[in-house]
């Protein structure tokens, strides 16, 4: 099995890489869509702002390639938000894989939403197999995707937000599985074990 982790210059890949190594999974870091050929799975990490991330994905040719992927792809944090139609952050047109628009968290609570929060599982997904409903995951986000048709797990931070989403072969988590201890590792392991 071969996993491709997309490097689009916007994010720190070290933590995701360390987690995959810990799981005993081999992976390649790819910088062009050529790297997607023949891959079994793709991970789209993300730290940073939506505008510059989309620009980088477009400049490197990923923006056109990703929506047509047929293998499983996991978007993490900003990676999940980039699957949406639009993001209020920098007023960015995103990949349009998931309906719905990413919004800024407007709340009296502290922003960013940072720390361990509970995820309520709404639908079965192979990504959350073996994970107890109500488990905690580590979040760092100032923007969020509202709960929609493809939300499989939600988290409450004043408003309900999409914590986990799945649409066909497209998977995403708003939290950082690579920083979410046992259950985060389980999510990554589940993803790596998905069949095509």
């Amino acid at each position: 099995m071969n996993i491709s982790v997309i490097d689009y210059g916007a994010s720190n890949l070290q933590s995701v890489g360390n987690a995959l190594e810990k799981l005993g999974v081999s992976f390649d870091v790819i910088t062009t869509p050529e790297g997607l050929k023949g891959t079994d799975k793709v991970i789209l990490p993300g730290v940073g702002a939506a505008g510059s991330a989309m620009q980088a994905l477009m400049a490197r040719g990923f923006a056109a390639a990703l929506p047509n992927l047929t293998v499983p792809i996991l978007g993490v944090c900003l990676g999940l938000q980039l699957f949406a139609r639009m993001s209020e952050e920098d007023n960015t047109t995103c990949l349009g894989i998931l309906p719905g628009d990413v919004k800024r968290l407007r709340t009296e609570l502290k922003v960013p939403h940072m720390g361990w929060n509970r995820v309520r599982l709404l639908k079965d997904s192979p990504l959350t197999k073996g994970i107890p409903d109500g488990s905690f995951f580590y979040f760092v986000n100032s923007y969020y995707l509202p709960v929609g048709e493809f939300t499989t797990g939600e988290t409450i931070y004043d408003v309900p937000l999409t914590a986990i989403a799945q649409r066909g072969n497209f998977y995403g988590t708003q939290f950082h599985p690579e920083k979410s201890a046992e259950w985060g590792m389980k999510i990554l392991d589940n993803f790596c074990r998905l069949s095509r």
Partner: protein
Amino acid sequence: MLIIPAIDILDGKCVRLTRGEYVTQKIYGDPLKFAKQLESDGARMLHVVDLNGARDGAPANRELIMRICSAVSIPVEVGGGIRKAETARAYLAAEAARVVTGTRAMDDMDFVGELIREFGASRIVVALEIKGGKVAVKGWQSTVHKDYRELARELKARGVTELLFTDVERDGTLTEPNFEVVRELAALGFNVIASGGVSDVQAIRKLRELGAASAIIGKALYEEKMTLGEAEEAARPLSGLAKRIVPCLDVKDGKVVKGISFENLQIVGDPAALGKKYSAEGADELVFLDISASKEGRETMFSVVEQVAKEVFIPFTVGGGISSVEQMRRLLHLGAEKVSINTAAVKDPSLITAGSKAFGSQAIVVAIDAKRVGTGWKVFLRGGSEETQLDAIAWAKEAETRGAGEILLTSMDKDGQKSGYDIELLRRVSEAVRIPVVASGGAGSLEDLKRALTDGSADAALVASLFHYGEYSITDAKEYLAKEGISMRT
């Protein structure tokens, strides 16, 4: 979620209609007096509707509404009879915080886009009045009935962000709102103002859970089905975030050490191995503090971080001797979640801003060592040996303004004393900033942790010796705190 009490005005009097029918009116009194009363009851916004205007197409109670706007100091949302850009402009130019315009009444949908360009989307509210799933929209010749989803998409394309949703069949009925539509509109990305049938605290709780931005309450308030205070209480934002327990490990020349004073340090082990152990016991986060005195010692921290990141899959912060953006970059790229700066931030506060710009505020922790001096607290540097003239609370605020994402607050008076955290210091700093505050210094019992997280309002408690000497395990601490009703990741 914001609770907005409604004042509906008909012929200069405050009234309530049932299902929007004018024959069903009940009169409740003087609108101006009522507005002032609501403000003193703690309302944070008012929703004022000119019912004559809504019925006849032109404002009839404008003078009165303008008087309300200037009589109260809270924002006022105005609706009723706003069918032309000039009418909206007049209200917005006066003291209305935002105006509400309806689709049924609009002569020209383009005027919404025009107003949004002129005043910004947050001041223009479009009322979506649904009856049997349809919205009446005025067209060129006659009124057409559109599916609300279709119309919502059209409004979105015109830049509308604020939607006032009323299910006409439920308005003033004291039943319950149409939750399903609220959920849908919120999922489409609108800030939904729910109106109609918001009759009890259960409905408010439900609306909050569904992601409504605000709820308008009218009849339920007038008829004392609930008080404004009860409504506000039910609307208070829910955070599922757990409070954090954060073991702190002192690292010297690449090894974890412990000791009462700097002279009697004992090596207790390898940072990655200990980090892994604490993580397995349920630590929510770790702090590695480099206390190396030498340049060589400091250089070993980078390989420590590299090793830790391969073994520890919870967030960890690295602090001690960090004084440049380049050092931050190296540590974060090796896998640290946050970096903590202390002395360097005081010497050059622009470092906070530079770090926050480069890596995001969530990655920048400002550590403050505070000691009571007179009636306040002063910031101390270099492990408490150097006094500054900086007030600790003012410095915490400045750090936040400059881009810090978290404050790690150590009481030098309490540190090592095991007599409890400095609760007053914690509370004062927590009240002064809107970023998380991590309590440090003084934990001697599990009850001390509880007090820091409750009375001290801290978001996290840093613990060193309490865990290192095996008095309590992290599991003991978290079980105790959870039992005491504190939200814990267990």
